[in-house]
């Protein structure tokens, strides 16, 4: 019976492929991309257990067991980077994650289609500026001679240097990230909102529902599933949630204590300190393993709460 069932499923899959073969062909480039850039490099994780030697390559370098992991766990800078990564990512989850949802709902509530488009364009535009360029602009704006300090000086307020202060660096990162990405991130929720049947709103109108009630009883249930999937992805990416490009271009030695994340730590070790690549690979592997654990846990929680999970 089981074989028969299995055979039926195989037939169904083959039939599906045959009828949708164009879609499958379109999938091939993405699969190749993942194979080349995500799966093939996984062979490199071997390096986490080896002492890399230039002349012997990844596979020929000598094994050192878990030496790199022992070194890693005894390094205070590593733990500082882990903690900072978690703080940045949880901060992003708490402060950044709800903003695109709110933006999408607010844009959806706008009555004038023209104004909606204008606001959507303005909010999405910063996404297209790279962090390299944007960080330069932000540094200029907030520099001691920048416009912010010029205005403050004219008002008799003392200078501020948010990128130099241990207290203000993290909020600066979160706020600038929200400003840059909230509009872009809201697109997926906007798409989810368009899928809500307008009849539901009409029915709510007939029932005498106000705006808030429609938002709470029609809009929110309509996008909740997408929010859950985005939440799983966000939690899964917690170890990589802090944006390397952003922090690397905005941080400096005085704020390492609150700014140094795993990626910047690995970068400095690899290219400035000259640490063995085996060690830096071990750090990267640690980060990935924690990421897998988190995404699995988040998925389970979401599934258990009655929503659709990723797997």
């Amino acid at each position: 019976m089981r074989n028969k069932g299995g055979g039926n499923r195989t037939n169904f899959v083959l039939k599906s492929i045959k009828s949708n073969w164009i879609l499958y062909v379109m999938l091939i480039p993405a699969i190749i991309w993942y194979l080349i850039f995500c799966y093939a490099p996984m062979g490199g994780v071997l390096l986490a257990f080896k002492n890399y030697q230039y002349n012997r390559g990844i596979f020929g370098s000598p094994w050192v067991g878990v030496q790199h992991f022992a070194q890693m766990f005894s390094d205070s800078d590593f733990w500082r980077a882990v903690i900072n990564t978690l703080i940045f990512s949880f901060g992003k989850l708490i402060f950044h994650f709800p903003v695109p949802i709110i933006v999408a709902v607010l844009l959806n509530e706008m009555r004038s289609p023209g104004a909606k488009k204008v606001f959507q364009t303005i909010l999405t535009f910063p996404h297209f500026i790279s962090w390299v360029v944007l960080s330069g602009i932000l540094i200029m704006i907030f520099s001691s001679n920048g416009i912010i300090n010029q205005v403050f000086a004219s008002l008799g307020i003392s200078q501020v240097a948010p990128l130099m202060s241990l207290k203000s660096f993290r909020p600066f990162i979160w706020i600038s990230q929200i400003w840059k990405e909230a509009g872009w991130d809201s697109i997926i929720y906007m798409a989810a909102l368009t899928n809500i049947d307008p009849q539901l709103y009409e029915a709510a109108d007939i029932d005498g529902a106000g705006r808030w009630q429609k938002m709470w009883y029609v809009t929110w249930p309509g996008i909740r599933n997408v929010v859950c999937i985005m939440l799983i992805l966000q939690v899964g990416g917690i170890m990589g949630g802090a944006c390397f490009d952003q922090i690397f271009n905005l941080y400096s030695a005085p704020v390492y204590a609150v700014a140094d994340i795993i990626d910047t730590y690995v970068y400095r070790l690899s290219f400035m300190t000259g640490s063995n690549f085996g060690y830096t690979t071990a750090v990267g592997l640690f980060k990935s393993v924690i990421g897998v654990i988190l995404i699995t846990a988040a998925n389970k929680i979401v599934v258990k709460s009655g929503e659709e999970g990723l797997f």
Partner: protein
Amino acid sequence: MKLKKMVAWSLAAVMVTSSFIGSSAEESNETTQEDPIEVSVAIWNAEDGLNDPEDPIYKKLVEKTGVKLVPQNITWDDAGQKIQLWATNGQLPDIFVGDYVGTSFFTNWVDQGVIRALPENLDEYPNLKEYLKMEKAQAVKKDGKFYMIPRQTYGDITYSVQDRNVVYRWDLAQKAGVTKEPETYDEFRDMIKKIIEADPENKNISGMTQALPKLIDGFIYPYGGILTQKWVEKDGQFMPSYFAGDMQAAMQLARDMYQEGTIEKDIALAKLDTSKEKFLQGQNAAMVFAGSGPSWLYHEIGKDYEQLYGRKFYDDIKIAKLYPCADGNKYYFVDTESWSETYISSAVDDEKMAAICKLFDYLYSEEGRRLMFCGIEGEDYDLVDGKPVMKEGVVLGDKYTFKNPSSSIASLAIWDPASWDMESPSANPQEYRDLDVQRHQDAVENGTLPKYYDEVKYLSTPKKDTFVYETSDDLLQIMMGTDPVDEMIEDLMQKYEKKGLSEMLEEVNAAAKDAGIEIE
């Protein structure tokens, strides 16, 4: 059947590929001795200097050496990363430059065959052989072999004072009521404070900035008698000057200056173009800069300043003298006579190695040096009493692609000696060059250079090669910190102890003893 077909196709593919490989190998065998040998080179912005194969200087170089240089470009921003990546994936150019001596990179590259030593017998290359008698080249030899060629920056270590200079707006200081140029750190601070308070041009002027990250070390650390690049003797053992000097005094000075605003708030984020622009626009009262002495500023800021303000740059701007440090001596920043080196990839075969040696032998010859830094004889300069005298109006950087100021290709073997050798022709005006002389004289006549031991600095031991201390990061962290300076220094030292400072010192001192290096 299918398997047979696949095997047949695979064999066919292999045969086709090998026939191509065979033909290219045959072609290369046909290369005549007269054809130039292609040597790939990575030096800062090499592309900018090598993008005209018909450039007269470059053509002459090819003609004289039989070497055709092929750029594998690096810039000041990405050089370190690119070279390390190339070293990892076997794509290093035949020759590349960088500052790797004394780091774990250098030791690993030698031990693991990433770089190749020069031939032991250099009799065929007398200029190169003579050049390699320099102290650094000898000190860094491994198993009696040269794994790098130092790229000479200065004639002797005292010229190294030109590597870190502070310029300040004397015109604004005068407008703020300062009548005497500062002679001490305190007077300097006082002057900057007065400029900021008066803000004579109403530009919300800030304190001192730096042209590049990490340059401020060169102004602050000497105050504590610390030569960040050197190893010295203290209490009967060799140690980095960083741990031997008066760190408390230096860090406290930095903290005080930062808190009073004489060092600008966002100095840690300084970038070359931004800092130059800000100083030019009168937004900073002072700036620490690197380069080859005050004359370096001519092309960087001076010309634009004179055009913008219509006044002589060095009438308005002064170079800070050496000031008495915490113990009364006038210490100053020193690096080495050659802060970077040339390396040769292990992928280079004997034939190419011979070509590279010939290239460097020529570059170290009188004729080669003149070609690189004076141009073409008769056209750009004349020899008068055996010395090159530049012709009126000749600016090599404007005339030849190979001498493009943004490219360092002409300085492949050594840096332009014009910054320290006044007999060497320069495109900078004499009044600017005079300031280089003054700066050097200040160091020679008034400066204090403690005894240092480069032979220990260049020693390679397992712990030393992996022990990293970040003088710049430490300075910025303590300078901008909020806890008391002495507590932060204590924490810092505990961190270094945890990283194995004592064990490293023990190991290095034992190695120095074995090597016969004695305290003088």
